[in-house]
């Protein structure tokens, strides 16, 4: 075991907040089914509804607009699948046409691909070099008529780039489309208010905000057509079947409460660390290329490519030094394709393959950042010395 263990992979998942742990331990004693009428059930119901209220409040929503889900992926699947609902009974006036982007999370992209087999038309917006979509292109798609849903993620998980959701919502609504944003990476890192954003649907996930894994929430604006994805019971007002995950729900609400307290100061601090990292890396490593938007970005995330060094090697050498990061590429998830997000920003496959994502969190210290800056240059140098692909100041240097 390395002497230090530093976790720079908070966009993948986060440790439980100490207050969440406490809440979970307390909640373990409560076991009623919120749907039961007896005392055990009523206690569970009261706690679930209290949690719903707290989650809703932090995003400016009404509690009736919150549906608890089993994950961010489920939330996104739920929204997209609405547009393939086979019956006009449950989703009247549904227009089976979706516009989304090339840089969405796989749970949006793969669901979209499946929906095509179910008669839904899907278009993918391009992004610029910073990962931002173009409102002009969106408007063109919207003009072609019949778009039922625009789904654009609020902040990208790999490069951190934040989209202008209020403007996108306004445009979508102007053309009669509904608006969804996957806010899994934005929620709890930057302010998220459903009314300021103007969205009809918004997805969040517990484990990205120091809450439990396996719990999420979906915001559904009052009056928006809806059809359950997991069908069955009357749980969640008939919007999501399955006995409520009371432990997860109470843990999520506590995580949200803590975000409310900690988010602003933490963002400030992490933004400072990120600039330390950016400057330190630039100063100590040749030809480092930063990916994503330099400022319109969630404060904890820094994505950087090192031409000539393959991402997975960097990840594993860092791991040996006790530092956990992820590769921008999907290698980590078992595929060898370079990151679809980086490719969409127009970088070449080599740069995409040679990237790592550093994602900090609430426990990140200045010492962690300094240790990273001490360790990383040696690792990159070592890999590049082994590499067939690195020529110092080579073609990449020019586009830095």
């Amino acid at each position, binding site marked *: 075991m390395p002497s230090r263990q530093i976790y720079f992979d908070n966009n993948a998942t986060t440790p439980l907040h100490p207050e969440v742990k406490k809440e979970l331990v*307390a909640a373990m004693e*409560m076991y009623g089914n919120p749907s039961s*009428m007896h005392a055990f059930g009523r206690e569970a119901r009261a*706690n679930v509804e209290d949690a719903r209220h707290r989650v809703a409040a932090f995003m400016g929503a009404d509690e009736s607009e919150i549906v608890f889900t089993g994950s961010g992926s489920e939330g996104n699947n739920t929204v997209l699948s609405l547009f393939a609902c086979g019956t006009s009974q449950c989703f009247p006036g549904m227009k089976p046409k979706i516009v989304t982007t090339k840089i969405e999370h796989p749970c949006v992209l793969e669901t979209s691909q499946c929906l095509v087999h179910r008669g839904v038309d899907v278009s993918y917006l391009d992004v610029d070099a910073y990962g931002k979509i173009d409102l002009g292109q969106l408007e063109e798609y919207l003009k072609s008529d019949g778009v039922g849903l625009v789904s654009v993620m609020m902040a990208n998980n790999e490069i951190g780039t934040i989209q202008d959701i209020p403007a996108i919502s306004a445009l979508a609504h102007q053309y009669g489309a509904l608006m969804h944003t996957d806010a899994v990476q934005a929620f709890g890192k930057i302010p998220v208010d459903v009314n300021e954003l103007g969205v009809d649907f918004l997805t969040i996930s517990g484990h990205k905000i120091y809450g439990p894994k396996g719990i999420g929430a979906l915001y559904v604006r009052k009056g928006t057509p809806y059809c359950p994805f997991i069908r069955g*019971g009357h749980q969640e007002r008939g919007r999501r079947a399955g006995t409520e995950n009371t432990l997860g729900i109470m843990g999520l609400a506590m995580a949200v409460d803590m975000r409310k307290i900690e988010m602003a100061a933490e963002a400030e601090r992490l933004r400072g660390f990120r600039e330390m990292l950016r400057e330190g890396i630039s100063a100590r490593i040749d030809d480092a290329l930063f990916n994503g938007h330099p400022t319109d970005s969630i404060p904890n995330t820094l994505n950087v490519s090192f031409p000539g060094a393959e991402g997975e090697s960097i990840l594993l050498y860092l791991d040996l030094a006790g530092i956990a990061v992820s590769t921008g590429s999907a290698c980590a998830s078992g595929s060898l394709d370079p990151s679809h997000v980086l490719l969409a920003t127009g970088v070449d496959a080599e740069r995409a393959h040679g990237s790592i994502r550093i994602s900090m969190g609430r426990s990140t210290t200045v010492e962690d950042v300094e240790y990273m800056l001490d360790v990383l240059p040696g690792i990159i140098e070592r890999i590049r010395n082994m590499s067939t692909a690195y020529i110092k100041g080579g073609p990449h240097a020019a586009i830095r």
Partner: protein
Amino acid sequence: MLQSGEWAYTEKLKEHFESPKNVLQGNDTSAFDGVGMEGNLQCGDQMMVAIKVDKESEKITDCQWKTYGCASAIASTSILSEMVKGMTLDQAFNISPKEVAKELGGLPENKIHCSVLGDKALRAAINDYFIRNGMSDRVQKVQARTVCQCMNVTDHDIEEA
């Protein structure tokens, strides 16, 4: 974490559910001046209300009832039977389910319909009194139940498991 687990309904409702007032003992209603029956067992709710009336003043002097129904039906009819004593037939006829629910301190949304039944049975009993006493002209139609009440219930909140 909330330490709830207390009764979901209001104290008042709980009180009337625990000790319902004016339940008819036995099945004999021959001593009463008007009897009304509403609902059916298919829907899981049935209500019978029997009243005694002072002919002179047309005031209700006694009101007893029986029900096949849930806690809300029991409690709301219990409280209704207290409310109508001393009222004239016209006053009693015009009590709305809302007033009964209010008297109970409120009812959950999906239980409002349960309180309607007692009310309807009371009106049927009053109409029965009019018919028995040759005042058929005073019979007021109880709003016809075209569809079974059960179908209109908002059934989200809670679910069987």
